């Protein structure tokens, strides 16, 4: 069995470690490129959401590299994600690929397939203790990659040498790919933290602060969203992203509760009272949280035609007014152009700067 899985930012680092430790041969999906997107767009239904197309592209590129087993997650709706695997399977079948789909679907669709998938994804039987250690280290790796990205976002606006920042963080992520033990992981972590702390920073000053909300895939995957975070950071904006894979997994698992998400849901309540699938309610809640924390603006990222996010967008029109908070909505799909996106982000930052200046002037007059 040569297994593969779709990309989600640095998920491949953690999953690659997990599966190979469990004795499963892993075929890493090639990085998302224009080719990946082209393959997905050509084969997937035209009006399907963009992540379905990109992940389909991942699958096909991995199959061509020799993968014969695909790991995928399912779901129970109402967002379309839970039905991706069904569509992708039928497309791959029609193309004549002989691959095995291991679908980890909600036990609602039957405990037997759920347990079978879990078993296939956990490889050779290990002792429970070793299994626990492996999973927990994989989880730590995932958390750390996200932590590194958070640091990159927060520091980009202040660091003197931006290339050095990228080198430090990309280097650390690269080294994580070859981790084999807990001690090694701790060493990489410590060294990365030291390198980050050693970076030279500009004097702290009043910076613009922008929060990112939206659908989990598009708001995170920078190879899809034209690296909006970098764009903002280069313009001197402090960026915070409310979306993370760790949070996503935590909230999806029925027995865990993440405090931040629950808090965001509570904040969304006056505007959106009910879960509408995907990250719809999180987008609203996180926007309100950013507003309350005094952020200058919010960038809302989602795939074009994403149903939960369109509900969120409708609701956000009022949040925008009530909190006097500028929101830039960016719907991403295969037709999105980089130049247009850059122009819009730059214009947005201009607006934020002007607002900040005006508010200062007002204070001075009175």
């Amino acid at each position: 069995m040569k297994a593969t899985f779709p990309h989600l930012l640095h998920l491949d680092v953690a999953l690659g470690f997990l599966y190979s430790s469990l004795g499963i041969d892993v075929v890493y999906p090639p990085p998302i490129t224009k080719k990946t997107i082209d393959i997905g767009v050509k084969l997937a239904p035209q009006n399907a959401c963009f992540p379905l197309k990109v992940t389909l592209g991942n699958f096909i590129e991995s199959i061509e590299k020799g993968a014969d087993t695909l790991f995928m997650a399912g779901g129970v709706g109402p967002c379309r994600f839970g039905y991706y695997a069904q569509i992708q399977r039928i497309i791959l079948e029609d193309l004549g690929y002989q691959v095995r789909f291991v679908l980890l679907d909600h036990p609602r669709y039957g405990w037997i397939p759920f347990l079978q998938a879990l078993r296939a994804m956990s490889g050779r039987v290990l002792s429970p203790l070793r299994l626990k250690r492996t999973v927990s280290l994989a989880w730590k790796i995932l958390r750390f990659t996200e932590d590194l990205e958070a640091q990159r976002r927060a520091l980009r606006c202040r660091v003197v040498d931006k290339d050095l920042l990228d080198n430090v963080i990309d280097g650390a992520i690269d080294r994580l790919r070859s981790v084999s033990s807990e001690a090694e992981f701790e060493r990489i972590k410590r060294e990365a933290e030291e390198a980050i702390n050693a970076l030279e920073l500009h004097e702290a000053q009043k910076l613009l602060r922008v929060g990112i909300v939206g659908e989990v895939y598009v708001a995170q995957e920078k190879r899809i969203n034209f690296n909006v975070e970098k764009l903002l950071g280069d313009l001197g904006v402090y960026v915070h992203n409310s979306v993370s894979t760790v949070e996503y997994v935590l909230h999806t698992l029925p027995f865990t509760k993440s405090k931040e998400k629950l808090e965001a849901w509570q904040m969304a309540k006056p505007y959106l009272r009910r879960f509408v699938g995907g990250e719809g309610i999180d987008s609203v809640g996180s926007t309100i949280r950013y507003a309350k924390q005094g952020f200058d603006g919010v960038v809302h990222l989602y795939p074009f035609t994403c149903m939960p996010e369109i509900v969120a967008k409708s609701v956000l029109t009022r949040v925008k007014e009530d909190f006097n908070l500028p929101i830039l909505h960016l719907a991403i799909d295969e037709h999105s152009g980089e130049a247009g996106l850059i122009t819009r982000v730059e214009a947005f930052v201009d607006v934020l700067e002007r607002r900040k200046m005006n508010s200062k002037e007002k204070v001075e007059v009175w």
Partner: protein
Amino acid sequence: MKKVGLPRGLLFYRFYFLWKTFLEELGFEVVVSPPTNKEVVHWGLTNSVDEICFPVKVFLGHVFSLIDRVDFLFLPRMVSFHKNEYNCPKILGLPDIVRNLFRYPDENLLDSEVNMRDRGVRGWLQGYLEIGRKLGKSERETMRALSLAEEKHRSFREQVRSGLLPEVLIDGKKPFPSFPEKVLLLGHPYLVSDSYINMNLVQKLADLGFSVFTSEMLPEKDIRKALKLVPKISFWTISNEILGTALHFIRNRGEGVQGLIHLVSFECGPDSLVGEVIERVLKREREELPYLRLEIDEHTGEAGVVTRLEAFVDMIRWRRREVESNFSSPFAS
């Protein structure tokens, strides 16, 4: 008498008789927005965010037309009316969309949650009881109104099953003529039943000599039986009905169905995936069955629809001739 507004859109075409009877039995005057027209669409377009699908925009136009004329807006949050299934996220969030876009006061919005996903009939009852409470009615009064309403609903569903379209029953329109040749018209009831949105599609087909058969005309048990053929059914009730009906007719052509039209609104999330399943199954199993996917939004031109319909009908007739010409004729050899 206090007035309750019922916007003519989305699930209206499914639950009109239920909702109307329920509210009237509780002692309210029901005000229904006028059939969709240019003005309603215009209001919808100006009052909604641009990316939302056309049927929701139209619905918001209907809401706008009612807002100043009624004391309450009836907008139950129809999360689910089938076990283990959902409606589309936009329907789930509809009351919030209306509340925020129109700044509609909370106390006048009847938006109790009707959710049969986990609790089945109890979820259904709970929703309506809550509406009753909000309107100041006792549990007994509400239950009585609901059971009368459900009776009306059942007889409406039976009439639809016998071949009458909802808009005929709701507005008392003249029924469309019935022809032996039929087209399977798949699509959400708000597209199939709103002849302004679908540009008089049913009438146009009738002019070409075809009647339509819709998923609401197929018994529920046939739909569910056909759905067993896919490894995992979707989690959207109406899309499942569409998928089940399509599969049923792909496997056993019946009712004189000559071809398939799938009416979808551009940006419809569920249909973008379910439609793909239908197309691929069709291609695998009955490639000869004529199929037309008609995508509709506010920019769709009527002339284009007519052209495509005519081509579709030509295709049906041409394919049939081709099949017939393959029989050995007495003059051959």
